């Protein structure tokens, strides 16, 4: 019984996703790109790095990288606490 309900829900969800993917805007033509045009035009002048992706990761959006490094650190602390030797 539970499997039948799950199956119906999954089929509904999957067909909804298929309809959405067919009706999306055409592939390869982004709609709004003002911010990215600004980055491509001015990133080399403002930060001095050739790689625009690196200058976004470490300069324009540094807070995202800080949070991501904190998440990685927290995961390592959790794994070390999980595998510690319990001496008794």
């Amino acid at each position: 019984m539970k499997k039948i309900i799950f199956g119906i829900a999954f089929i509904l969800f999957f067909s909804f996703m298929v309809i959405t993917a067919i009706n999306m805007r055409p592939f390869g033509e982004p709609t709004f790109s003002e911010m990215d045009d600004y980055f491509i035009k001015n990133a080399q002048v403002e930060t001095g790095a050739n790689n625009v992706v690196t200058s976004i990761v470490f300069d324009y959006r540094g807070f995202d990288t800080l949070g991501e490094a904190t998440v990685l650190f927290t995961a390592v602390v959790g794994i070390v606490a999980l595998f510690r030797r319990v001496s008794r």
Partner: protein
Amino acid sequence: MIDNFPFIAVIIFVGLGIYTLMFKKNLIKIAIGVCLIENGVNLFLITLGYKKGAVAPIYTQVPSGQSMVLPTPQALTLTSIVIGIATTALILSIAMMIYKHYSTLDTEQVRRLRG
């Protein structure tokens, strides 16, 4: 239809992941499902930023006068990949600890209490 093929690939990834999360009971298979959903979302983000006939946004020895792919989705996908690695490692470690304590990986049998 055939122009939107990357979106079809994205929904195949996400659909397989959600199928695995709904119907499988092994913890390793659940971890594989979470990984599939992550990869589908990353592919979707990269796909949204693609421009036809454009090159990667790096100025080192690029052919001049060519348009460039949008760089912001790529930067955010980089962040998302590292967070995915961290959560996958934590999920697998907890699965190993569960196997050590209960000697099984089935979620139906983990539910019972052990002294």
